[in-house]
């Protein structure tokens, strides 16, 4: 078990998502930055789809009531075990009673904590990803106990792994494909869309990221149609919305661009005020 002493700003259990129920209106969900969550699992020798804890900006305080091994990837939120600071992208041995804390955010936005064997919360509709009304809660709360696997032979040595993927956090280039309504934009609109630097507004969460800059919109709404994670929508008032992991399954705004999978992961590490530029990948 792991006891939650403090929940942090927004921490939730996520695997790679709930795929088979979209036709019933169920969002796919899953970890926002799947490059980092899969890396966290891989470093520990877990399966890619094992559930991890997604930690956003301000970390939780966790008390381990069982021995295990952990790995933290993604954003560096100055993690420490028993007040001794530890590195990201490394494997650590955890003893019963150890306390994991986080501190100052150094880079990125979302951190991924994996434990050996993954978090063992109840699977609902074939996934452990938290999403309100599918799972009981949308995030972990103070006082919760999280089930983890009991390990037999624990390698007690810390393993340092040399992996550096800072470009993932620093780069502001978001690769996109043309969306279904892209060709209805004017030449001028397309130019602005692909050359302007946009900034992320304070409306950004697991469902969608809104951009600050307005855009002259001449497109009409469409009959409610289908969207994907990473679909870029243009609202009637000229706002650009990028749908993220908890996005609804359909929507009525024109879909002007579609982010590549890699770029959804990159965008997940951006927060309010960060700048981005769209780069069209020819297809």
């Amino acid at each position, binding site marked *: 078990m792991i006891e939650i002493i403090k929940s942090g700003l927004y921490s939730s259990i996520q695997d790679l998502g709930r795929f088979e129920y979209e036709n019933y*209106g169920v969002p796919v969900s899953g970890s926002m930055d799947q490059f980092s969550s899969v890396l966290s699992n891989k470093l520990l020798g877990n399966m890619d789809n094992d559930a991890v804890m997604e930690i956003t900006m301000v970390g939780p305080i966790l008390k381990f009531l069982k021995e295990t091994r952990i790995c933290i990837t993604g954003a560096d939120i100055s993690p420490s075990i028993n007040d001794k600071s530890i590195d990201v992208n490394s494997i650590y041995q955890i003893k019963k009673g150890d306390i994991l804390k986080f501190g100052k955010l150094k880079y990125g936005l979302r951190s991924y904590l994996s434990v050996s064997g993954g978090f063992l919360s109840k699977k*609902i509709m074939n996934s452990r990803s938290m999403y309100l009304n599918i799972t009981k809660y949308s995030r972990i709360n103070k006082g919760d106990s999280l089930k983890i696997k009991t390990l037999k032979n624990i390698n007690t040595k810390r393993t340092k792994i040399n992996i550096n993927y800072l470009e993932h956090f620093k780069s502001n280039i978001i690769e996109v494909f043309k969306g279904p309504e892209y060709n209805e934009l004017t030449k001028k609109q397309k130019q602005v869309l692909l050359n302007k630097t946009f900034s992320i507004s304070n409306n950004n969460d697991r469902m969608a990221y809104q951009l600050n800059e307005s855009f002259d919109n001449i497109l009409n709404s*469409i*009959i409610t149609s289908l969207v994907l994670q990473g679909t870029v929508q243009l609202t009637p008032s000229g706002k650009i919305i990028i749908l993220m992991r908890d996005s609804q*399954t359909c929507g009525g705004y024109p879909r002007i661009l579609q982010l590549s999978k890699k770029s959804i992961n990159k965008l997940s590490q951006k927060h309010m005020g960060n700048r981005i530029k769209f780069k069209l990948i020819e297809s």
Partner: protein
Amino acid sequence: MKFYKLKYKRFGEYSVLVEWPSKIDESILENILLFKSEIEKKYINKKVYLKNSYNSLLISYEKKINYNTKISELNNSYKKIGPVKKQDFNTWEIPVCYDNQFGSDLINLEKNLSMNKDDIIYLHNSKEYRVYNIGFLPGFLYLGGLDKKIHHPRKEKPVLNVPKGSVGIGGSQTGIYPNTSPGGWHIIGNSPINLFNINKTSPCFIKPGDKIKFNPISLKEHELIKIQVESNIYKPIKTKIND
């Protein structure tokens, strides 16, 4: 068998979007559902994720796709679709209590539509509605066929907590909130039944292509059905569509 001129569009690295003419039409819906089941047949042992809306079908594959190969594959499947089997679809009776206790926006609608409450309720429950799509919220049905006389623009500011089961009118649509959620529709009643059950392999008993009919009930009946639903003994009433 009617065939439409379909538009294929690449949608990211993994998906193809197929579009039918841009209108809300029951024969288009039937055609989409036939294509969908043809693809399901072809991919029975492989993973492919399908979702449909009023006039489109989205096919998402597990691996990055070669767009041109997929298009010709899909085109071949489209040529094979068979005739509509109407008996595969049901009409479901959805009990709704239109009492003011639930229909918090009825008084406002009476004023704005210059109609009395009984007429609004009658126009709402005297028709059958086709289910085009499930989306927006888990278990939320997109219905077609609301009487023009009771179309009404959405609220300017959405309400934070619309209670579970609320039946509302938003623009040219009507629908039921499967769970408590924010919403901008005008609420005219409440249904005590569960539209979405996370413990079932098919979490919704209603599917696109089915029809629903709202059946007016009293406050007492609402209370009774709610108890039956909570103790898992309520069975929704259905009839097969075979016209």
